């Protein structure tokens, strides 16, 4: 019953892999910037934050909550028309990037927000006592102190994003997810299915390991030297 006939060629595999990395890379880059920006705004404008601003906080907080509550597939398709509007097509790897950024930015901003909230209040207190400006508090105190936690946050976000690109595969974005779906699922190509699953497992493992190591080395570099 197990069929070893496969349509999967090395070329197809590597193109898909490349497409996945391309989508993850670009959307991670923009998602991280936007997500971190939103998170910083949330943390400083929150009640009792260093630049408390009720309206700004509630608007941003609500938007993030709304976007986060939409299932990823539905979010991706609903943003596709916007891709069409901007780059002229709603199909393919490039078109998927915008929806992916929409998906990952709020996700990252929640994760980063948590990392930033972990920073000891005493540090912010010390910064205020020194007369630091809001910008200085963020740049010289908040972000450096959250660094090792942020690395883990971006690691988690990357892995989440790989999952989302697989979902984007179903709307014709290409990549590993597309491979699993169009070959593995619709054409009962077990080899393609298993190959993609194993590839995903390996990629996620590698990313998680690197992330953990990096975060730990930031946290501990002083204890080891």
């Amino acid at each position, binding site marked *: 019953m197990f069929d070893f006939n496969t349509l999967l060629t090395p070329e197809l595999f590597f193109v898909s892999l490349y497409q996945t990395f391309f989508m993850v890379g670009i959307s991670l880059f923009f998602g991280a910037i936007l997500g971190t920006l939103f998170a910083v705004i949330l943390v400083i404008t929150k009640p009792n934050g260093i630049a408390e601003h009720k309206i700004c906080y509630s608007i941003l907080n609500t938007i993030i909550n709304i976007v986060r509550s939409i299932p990823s597939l539905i979010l991706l398709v609903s943003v596709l028309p916007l891709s069409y509007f901007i780059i002229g097509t709603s199909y393919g790897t490039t078109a998927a990037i915008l929806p992916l950024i929409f998906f990952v930015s709020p996700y990252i901003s929640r994760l980063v927000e948590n990392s930033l909230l972990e920073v000891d209040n*005493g540090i912010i207190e*010390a910064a*205020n*006592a020194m*007369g630091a400006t809001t910008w200085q508090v963020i740049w010289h105190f908040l972000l450096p*102190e959250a660094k090792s936690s942020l690395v883990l946050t971006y690691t988690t976000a990357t892995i989440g994003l790989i999952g989302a690109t697989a979902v984007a595969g179903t709307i014709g974005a290409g990549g590993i997810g597309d491979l699993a779906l169009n070959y593995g699922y619709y054409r009962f190509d077990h080899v393609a299915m298993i190959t993609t699953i194993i590839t995903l497992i390996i990629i996620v493992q590698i990313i998680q390991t690197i992330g953990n190591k990096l975060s730990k080395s930031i946290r501990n570099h002083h204890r080891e030297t």
Partner: protein
Amino acid sequence: MIELKRVCKSFYHNKQEIKVLNDINITINDQDIFGIIGYSGAGKSTLIRLINALEKPTSGDVIIDGHNLAKFTHHEIRQMKQKIGMIFQGFNLLESKTVAENIALPLLLTGVPKQDRDKVVDELLDFVELKDKKQAYPSELSGGQKQRVSIARALANKPKILLCDEATSALDPQTTRAILDLLKRINQQQKVTIIIVTHEMSVLKHICNNMLVMENGKIVEQGNVVDIFQNPASPVTRKFVNAVIYDKLPIRILNNMLKHDINNIYRLEFLGSSCRHSVLSDAIMRDCGKISINILFSNMIDIQENVIGYMFVNIEGESNDVEEAIDFLKRKQVRIAKLDKDGNYV
């Protein structure tokens, strides 16, 4: 000079007012070491945070060197904060930065060039005796060393005022002593006004000139440290003073005395000048030994060159001879009280 005039401070929780400070009036002179003591929740931290504008008074004025903080712009507030150092119970050092980077932070914020920063950091490390820890991270330091780093950081901008909120509460007595000595050195060498919040009377005793006692957001007593130690007026103050110098005969010694039917027990209070005279022997000699004074227990401390203390004695002799001896002691400025049956000194 720091002045707080009719300062009140309230926090609001769900529209409900929590009065934390009530009608606070204080004057702190330049180069003073000023202590603020009170139990947890008395409002000490809130009070000290008013001075560097971490909190705004709900009403009343905070005036530093004649400038009312309420009239300052944001920019002026920041400049003022740079001239007020602050250290904390939890040290609040950045774990992600080395000792040198931590100390350089206030200078970085004010835009001091790297070369000058390095120079100041080296001087400060020298001053707090931590030269060898320059490249260490805070997690590699002991509590006392961390507090030294945070003191160095607080001094980086050459402040005129140093605020210490429970700066020694997380440290053992020996380390506390060393940190207090360092603060004293800062006060004397760099002419810095120091304000210390604490719940330990021993901290005040070691270095403060003036002090105030807080309870439930109010000042219950305020004045010179030696005076307050000698004459604690309020019950709270008395409790704090008793933690350092107990004004009663320890209960076991007392019970032992009562068992042996010894009941002519007096408490002699020695303040200031009376300590320097041989009052006890004089009292015995003037009556040619008609009375005997037996020392049961004594409690003495020194507060910055002043000795204060209590001595518990048993005076035996004919009752009018005893009376005369007591009158003599009173004339010599020794406050004297007799232990009554209920264990009170009257």
